[in-house]
């Protein structure tokens, strides 16, 4: 059932007339640019607007490359460093105003539950929860400056750039009164354990043209396609987006064990038992021989 959720969301998004109109105009302007306070935690009741695709030919364009477009998870994998480098291409002389670059890397999403504890009969028990339909298992933002200074909130919510915005839809109606408190806690917890990273000032922009960003992927990576986006901003407004994918895959022994565990669980279970029995028997036999010698 939950596997069809993205599909349903897509259909709903396509049927929403406002969104369709905005897309057909080919405008980059956000639907509502009210500029509500930053950081803004999304209201679960509000429908999400669709992320627009690139529109043709802005005055300034991003040209970028990645040091790796695939990451292999081997047995000894302990994280990976991705270097993102690029330049800004223009036909005309450099316009006036503030120029900024933001780079985001987003891991595949997974459903999760946020629990809140309460004291019951003297012990702390999980009592209230909010189900998050899909949230990235890893999300990193690197930028040329503090996000609240270089990015207008309307553009942020349109492209879902900052950490709170990157969270996707909640599942159904939340059962609790203060859902934003849960979202806030989730961002805080994920930041603490290194799954959400914000590196304001991590990008160096040289002569308003060349930039580079180093982003470290942690060791605890999930498999899948990691979406990389590079935003070019002029005075807080997004003027160009460059997208690329990093493919993260288990290889070798990791791949084989994972496939076996999910495709042939019985065989995998029996193999785990065989390993355990052999190890137990081998150890006692081996040490007995050792002691006799």
């Amino acid at each position, binding site marked *: 059932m939950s596997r069809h959720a993205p599909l349903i969301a897509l259909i709903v998004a396509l049927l929403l007339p406002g969104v369709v109109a905005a897309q057909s105009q080919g405008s980059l302007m956000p639907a509502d640019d009210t500029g509500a306070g930053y950081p803004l935690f999304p209201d679960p009741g509000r429908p999400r607007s669709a992320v627009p695709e690139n529109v043709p030919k802005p005055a300034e364009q991003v040209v970028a490359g990645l040091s790796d477009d695939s990451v292999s998870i081997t047995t000894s994998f302990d994280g990976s460093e991705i270097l993102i480098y690029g330049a800004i291409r223009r036909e005309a002389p450099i316009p006036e105003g503030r120029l900024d670059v933001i780079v985001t890397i987003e891991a595949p999403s997974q459903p999760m*539950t946020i629990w809140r504890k309460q004291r019951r009969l003297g012990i702390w028990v999980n009592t209230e929860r909010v189900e998050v339909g899909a949230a990235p298992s890893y999300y990193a933002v690197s930028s040329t400056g503090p996000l609240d200074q270089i990015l207008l909130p309307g553009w942020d919510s349109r492209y879902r750039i900052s950490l709170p915005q990157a969270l996707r839809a909640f599942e159904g109606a939340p059962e609790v009164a203060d859902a934003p408190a849960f979202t806030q806690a989730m961002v805080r*917890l994920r930041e603490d354990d290194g799954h959400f990273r914000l590196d304001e000032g991590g990008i160096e922009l040289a002569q308003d043209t060349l930039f580079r960003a180093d982003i470290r992927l942690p060791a605890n990576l999930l498999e899948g396609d990691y979406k990389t986006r590079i935003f070019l901003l002029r005075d807080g407004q997004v003027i160009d987006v460059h997208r690329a994918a990093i493919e993260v895959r288990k290889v070798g022994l990791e791949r084989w064990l994972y496939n076996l*565990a999910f495709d042939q669980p019985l065989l995998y279970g029996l*193999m785990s038992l065989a390993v*355990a029995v052999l190890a137990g028997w081998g150890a006692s036999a081996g040490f007995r021989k050792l002691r006799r010698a």
Partner: protein
Amino acid sequence: MQIYLPIAEVSVNAFTLMGLGGLVGVMSGLFGVGGGFLITPLLFFIGIPPTIAVATGANQVVASSVSGVLAHMKRKTVDFRMGGVLLAGGLIGSGLGVLVFNILQRLGQVELVVQLCYVVFLGLIGGMMLQESLRALRRARHPTGRRRLHQHNWVHRLPFKMKFRTSGLYISVIPPLLVGVAVGVLAAIMGVGGGFIMVPAMIYLLGMPTKVVVGTSLFQITFVTAFTTLMHAVSYNTVDVMLALLLIVGGVIGAQIGTTLGAKLRAEQLRILLALLVLAVCAKLALDLFLTPDDLYSIVTRVR
């Protein structure tokens, strides 16, 4: 050296895991306990997801109990008939336990129930062991008359009696079956063998002679934990063989060191030390339940 665990999808230090297995192995060699009840909470502590810690813990117990039961079979101290009855109960209990585990996981209460189980059982066992070893120390100083083989109580009035020749018993099959079920449930929920429950139950409740108790309980544990591992692997894909292998390698080496060490130390004092250790772990877990946690919120990722 970092190792990426294929099922847990976390990267951990291989030497930490082997050290952990080794430490628990030394304790099991020293004190004659399986060590499952120490490994599972330690795995929680280093960041292995609880579901995977429990399933893989069961797999690790298979390895340590196999090597134990082989040694006991050589000494002919395994009551296969009693083991079979306990096993029948154990398989039922294990099936129930895996079901309960799944329900708890959906309710978000796995951690709480597992923690509560640990507090209750570690408290009981620690207290019992401390009392028993203090009494043994006192008895060593003031020797008294011989105790009776076993007392007759309500256990001996139940129907469906059966002869257990190796144990020299003629009792109803209901109590051993129930003991088996209880241990099976614990094995599935806590990722332990349950020897620490079964051994006292066999001695005090069933009245089995001490010399066959350890071998018989190991016999039952081997099969129940093997069944539990298989159930977890087939229904929830939560057994991480790489993690199990690292723990087992550390564990078997540690067990041999522990056995050698144990021969050089005095038994009663060792038992008091173990009792104090078990009580300390229990107190730590209990405090976590009662004190206000650092963070009221927690995130649980669900299966895709």
